[in-house]
């Protein structure tokens, strides 16, 4: 039972971690919360589901297209809701992002309707029993894919020219410009990467819960933000750890405390973290 819940938690936690990475990276470079991250997650899921529903598209292509669409949406958001407001009081872009989030959610509601869409293709996954714990290979596959994406991100940031440039912009924007780094381009790249990861998380959860709907991004988005704070905002390993910890805490909380309050666990943790250790488990870069 405990191990079972642990594994369930790691599966949803890996989605939180992917979204949290987007929050943390964007916060790191702009000092802003992209409130519409949850809608980007939703967009990724919808694009993949709609493409697969045509029956003409291969799963992997649909997955990539979902990530691509999410990335594009992130890029558009940056242009429309953030860039015109750069330099204003931090409250202003925050509210504008809230506006974007509401706008996208209601747009999806108008276009796709409020009901759940099942995932168009059925995966034949078996259940593996390990030491009395039934783990579906679906969970395993989601977890592995999420870890793979995270590893790619970490490698990108650590070892590529653009990755290091993004970190440089986050650390010291003016000095980064003095090295010839185009900060605007790095901000755009950060939005693309963070959004693509959120899109991937959206597709994974669309498969896992077998449901895609306009409001699907609301709670995961908020929880992922809590995860980012838990791990220390601006800290990439922290976001991953925070996401996984939160997923597990939520799963265990639902199982052992009260299932009706499952969605509250993340926010109780958030408030506790802010109260006790605002810099997060791993120290955040902060701004």
């Amino acid at each position, binding site marked *: 039972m405990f191990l079972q819940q642990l594994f369930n938690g790691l599966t949803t936690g890996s989605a939180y971690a992917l979204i949290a990475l987007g929050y943390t990276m964007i916060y790191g470079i702009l000092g802003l919360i992209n409130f519409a991250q949850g809608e980007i997650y939703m967009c990724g899921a919808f694009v993949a589901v709609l493409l697969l529903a045509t029956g003409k598209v291969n799963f992997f292509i649909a997955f990539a297209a979902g990530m691509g669409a999410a990335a594009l949406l992130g890029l558009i958001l940056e242009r429309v809701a953030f860039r015109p407001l750069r330099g204003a009081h931090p409250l202003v872009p925050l509210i504008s992002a809230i506006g974007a989030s509401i706008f996208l959610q209601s747009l999806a509601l108008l276009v796709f309707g409020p009901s759940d869409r099942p995932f168009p293709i059925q995966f034949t996954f078996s259940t593996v029993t390990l030491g009395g714990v039934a783990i579906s290979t679906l969970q395993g596959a989601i977890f592995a894919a999420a870890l793979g994406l995270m590893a790619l991100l970490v490698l990108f940031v650590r070892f590529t*020219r653009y990755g290091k440039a993004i970190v440089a912009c986050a650390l010291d924007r003016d000095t980064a*410009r003095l*090295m010839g*780094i185009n900060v605007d381009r790095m901000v755009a790249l950060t939005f693309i990467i963070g959004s693509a990861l959120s899109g991937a998380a959206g597709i994974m959860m669309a498969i896992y819960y077998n449901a895609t709907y306009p409001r699907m991004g609301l709670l995961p988005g908020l929880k992922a933000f809590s995860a980012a704070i838990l791990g220390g905002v601006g800290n990439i390993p922290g976001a991953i750890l925070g996401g996984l910890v939160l997923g597990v805490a939520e799963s265990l909380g639902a199982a052992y405390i009260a299932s009706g309050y499952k969605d509250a666990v993340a926010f109780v943790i958030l408030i506790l973290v802010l109260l006790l250790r605002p810099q997060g488990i791993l120290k955040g870069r902060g701004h």
Partner: protein
Amino acid sequence: MEGGSEERGSRGTGVSPVIPPPTPSSRPPMLTLKSVQAGYGPLTVLKGISLHVRPGEVVTLIGGNGAGKSTTLRTICGLLPVRRGVLEFDGQELNRLSPERIVSLGLVLVPEGRRVFSSLSVTANLELGSYHRTDKAQVRRDLEDLRERFPLLRERAAQPAGTLSGGEQQMLAICRALMAKPRLLMLDEPSMGLAPRIVRQVYGILSDLKARGTTLLLIEQNARAALKLADRGYVMETGRIILDGAAAELRDDPEVQRAYLGKGYREVWE
């Protein structure tokens, strides 16, 4: 970039800021500021600055706190817009260029307070210095070359730059700028916040660069050290240049001595 050092003795007597003296060894200025104005918000900090730097020269800009020295460098780098006047490099106007473009022309700044990327490794800092360059093979050779000259860069290669000492960070910041392959290297207060012994080390690096013929534009509050190294100097006060001339002349100028060198100040930069 070689051969600058032997010319240097014959130059530096010119007082006129714009027109180069007609000595045969002088080359046309690479960087020229003509009545440049710049500032922040409603504030005009630079009230019409004219200066120039010739290839191979070491020029220093000295002055007290708030004279506008750093603002001058920030304007040259494109971090602040030029409001009036002309900023030229190799005859090309820089007024409207972004910092990114200006770096790729070879105008590189070592910012005030070193500003190394603290959580990135020493090597990553150096690599970021060469960010705008496309000659990958040469970049690798330059990195090796710097590591030969400064073994610390190799010893601490993987260490986060923030864990280095102040002097080491200054050295790293200079090396990072050198990785950008500067044609004109600008330094903003390289001695700031460092112990005298470390300042001597930093100036050792700078005079080594001078000997190699690197063109330097150096901003200092530590006028004594700067004038010792430089060929020519400008003295700034409240956004204007009030005095200019050969470094040796400025050193002997009673006004400069009183205001910036301090009478009876012991020579420590031997």
